[in-house]
């Protein structure tokens, strides 16, 4: 296995059985997958498509019925691979009687980190996920968004090379979602490999280099996001400050070259962009109604 391949699955399959060994459901049909170092990889699919099962098989939380999963060239059941892995589960399954500092310190100890390193790392991560003011509060007092943030912090405590994120934006508000996506991109810039599974397609589209689409436990599509989403026979032109004459001239040029003009109008922004602009404006000028038109056109 090449050093550049971080995760490799070979005919990886999983069948859930009942107590008597009878087949209940085939959660994953033989899956061959290679995830390269430094890429952001997305596992997409509707509920029950096998994406969480795939993540759990890669982590060794489940044992494959057939095939195998290799992480950094080691079998998924080899605990030593976890030294280089960070995992954020679907829900942040953390000890709710600990506070943020204790939580991160505890997980740091599980990586055999020295007290000094732990202290420094805990401090960094708490600040990074924006929980500095709540660092002494027990997790049972945390909101869902805060719990996700501390969950992400624990996943990064060991400065991992590979980060597996199960539904990373679930339960987050738009700001939290944007921050999470920015964080994923930042991790990519740092050269880390990120594998995420989600059914929020927009999130995946925003951050993933490659995706695999699963349905009913079967791999349906695999490739680069930009390649998969490119519509080859359509050309898109975006320009600012065109006069009506200029627009007419463009229409004529298209007609002269026997092209079909599908759409020419003013685009609208996304609701996410609008929301974030309002929040930014409100933070900059508290107590005043936001100037949406000006902000969004800027």
């Amino acid at each position, binding site marked *: 296995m090449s050093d550049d391949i971080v995760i490799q699955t070979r005919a990886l399959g999983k069948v859930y059985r009942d107590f008597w060994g009878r087949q209940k459901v085939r959660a994953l049909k033989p899956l061959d997958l290679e995830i390269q170092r430094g890429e952001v990889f997305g596992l997409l699919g509707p509920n029950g498509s096998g994406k969480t099962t795939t993540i759990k098989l890669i982590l060794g939380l489940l044992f494959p019925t057939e095939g195998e999963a290799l992480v950094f060239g080691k079998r998924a059941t080899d605990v030593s691979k*976890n030294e280089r892995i960070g995992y954020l589960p679907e829900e942040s399954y953390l000890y709710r009687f600990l506070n943020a500092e204790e939580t991160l310190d505890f997980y740091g*100890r599980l990586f055999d980190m020295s007290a000094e390193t732990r202290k420094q790392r805990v401090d960094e991560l708490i600040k990074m996920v924006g929980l500095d003011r709540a660092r002494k509060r027990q997790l049972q007092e945390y909101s869902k968004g805060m719990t996700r943030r501390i969950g992400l912090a624990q996943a990064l405590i060991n400065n991992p090379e590979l980060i597996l994120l199960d539904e990373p934006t679930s339960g987050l508000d738009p700001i939290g979602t944007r921050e999470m996506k920015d964080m994923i991109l930042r991790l990519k810039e740092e050269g880390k490999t990120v594998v995420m599974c989600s059914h929020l397609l927009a999130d995946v589209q925003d951050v993933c280099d490659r995706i695999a689409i699963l349905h009913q436990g079967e791999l349906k599509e695999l490739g680069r996001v930009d390649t998969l989403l490119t519509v080859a026979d359509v050309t898109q032109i975006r320009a600012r400050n065109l006069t009506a004459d200029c627009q007419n001239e463009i229409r004529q040029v298209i007609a002269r070259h026997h092209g079909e003009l599908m759409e020419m109008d003013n685009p609208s922004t996304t609701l996410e962009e609008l929301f974030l602009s309002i929040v930014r404006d409100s933070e900059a000028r508290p107590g005043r109604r936001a100037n949406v038109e000006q902000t969004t056109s800027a």
Partner: protein
Amino acid sequence: MILEEQILPYMQWLWSGGPGSIGALPRFLLIALGLGFLGLLLGFIVSAARHGILRGGDIVYRTITNGVRELWETSPRRVWALAQLAMKEAWRRRVVVALMVFFIILVFASWFLRTDHQDPAKLYISFVLTATTYLVLGIALLLSAFSLPADFKNKTIYTIVTKPVRAGEIVMGRTLGFTLVGTILLAIMGVSSYVFVNRSLDHTHEVDINSLKKVQDAAGEYIGQDGRTSLDANHRHEVELNTDGEGKAESNYGHYHQIVKRGDRSVVLGAEGIMRARVPRWGKLTFLDRQGVPKQRGISVGSEWTYRSFVDGNTQATAIWTFDDISPALNYDDGEVSGLPIGLIVRVFRTHKGVIGRGITGSIQVRNPETGLASEVIPFTALDAKIDERIIPQKLRGTDDKEYDLYKDFVSPNGQLEIRVQCLEGGQYFGFAQPDMYLRLPDASPVVNWLKVYASIWVQMVIVIAIGVTASTLLSGPVAMLFTVSFIVLGFFRPFFVGVAAGTEYGGGPVESFYRLITQKNIITKLDEGFTTSLIQGVDLVFRSLMLTMAQVLPDFAALSTVAFAALGFDVPADKVYQDLTMCLAYVIGLSVVGYFLLRTREVAR
């Protein structure tokens, strides 16, 4: 003191064992080897059935090699982190409530335990230590059986096993964490109960002035006063005062008081000797029957419990203890009395009432086992099951009425001394077991003895925690709890369980017992011969084999308990403490290995 099994010296117990048994270490290795092989076989069968023979074999091989590798990769820091987490979790689960329950038990004990009992210390100590044992075992059970299953249920285990945490570290961390919590609770209970027993039983008396009578010696000279104390705490003492008005309120109800002169009054001080730690040195017991023929045991008086055997009164029947290494170093000399201190417990079996309120007369005689020189008999009165502490005088008359020295004349050149006990009343019997006579060495510290008893409770607690944690790696909380409870209950009745498994108990195995129950046949009725009986006994044979296998790993909780030592005022032998601690370590190691493989082969996300 009842000791059904002789306490062997530690090294002998560890390496070679007693007569007819093997040492603890070879036994442990044999059991580990046997169970390891069985586990391997079972693992292979299950894997082969699921994945085929080749893949199944590969899985088993990898599980074993990973296990060995991961053992070396165990990190104390991770174990400690998991232990601290377990401790925090225990505090969060309000484990401290157990302390409140303990204090409520003490309050009830102070209200309801009788202080007019003949030996109130025995009653108090026995109650407090037994209550502590059951309470601590209960806490250990609840903490250990529900913790890991809760992690599985809440899925917090996902964030643990996706870190470089070995399954063995999870098992060890839990066991260590709960053990530390239990140790803190036990320490608090130990100190509280020690103070409670001493404070509850402490009392004083007044010297009853009206009862005092002057005592004169043979020359008619005034040498002091005799009398009694006032009635307090449901008892009074005989008093002996010297000419200065100081003395002692004699031993009664298991204690005595010093009397000192303050001003013109004789003041009785607080009770002493309530908690004792007698240090016995046991000899070897043999018998003579009524015709004077040597026997290994006395006669049976029909008791099902064969711990003691009996000598019949007014015959040649004799109980003979032979003690080794007797030397003048054992001599006790307080200026008034000089001799060899011994303790004697007699179970009196009466075939007729005799004189009401009076004990049965017996005799003690010392004898040189080599020369046959015997002393004159020393008469005594035996009260049933009472500890009779006496001194065999250094200067003794022989049967030839000459005076002899105990150590020079009655001790053989190889240091042996025989002490013979007979019952002198016809139709009455004395019952003895080997530990019923002992040489009394200087008492040990009661505080240290208290610690040793708590160490034995601690050992039981740790074993329960190890069983609970191991069971919880595979089973859900309630099922793990039931499994552990079964282990505890069977452990407390281990001799009976082994008896059923070995076929030495009446009533047959489990199926036969059930059959007798529903057909209302008593346990000694012979079953009709035929197919049904053969089938029942055939199935029982399988069950009994399984039970015998299980008995090899079943902890003997009754034997681990040392409550009786403290209650009866005996020092817990250091050899027993070391043996119990070693056994505890063996259980923790063995169960951790089992727990490791159970957790390692379990799908965490199922």
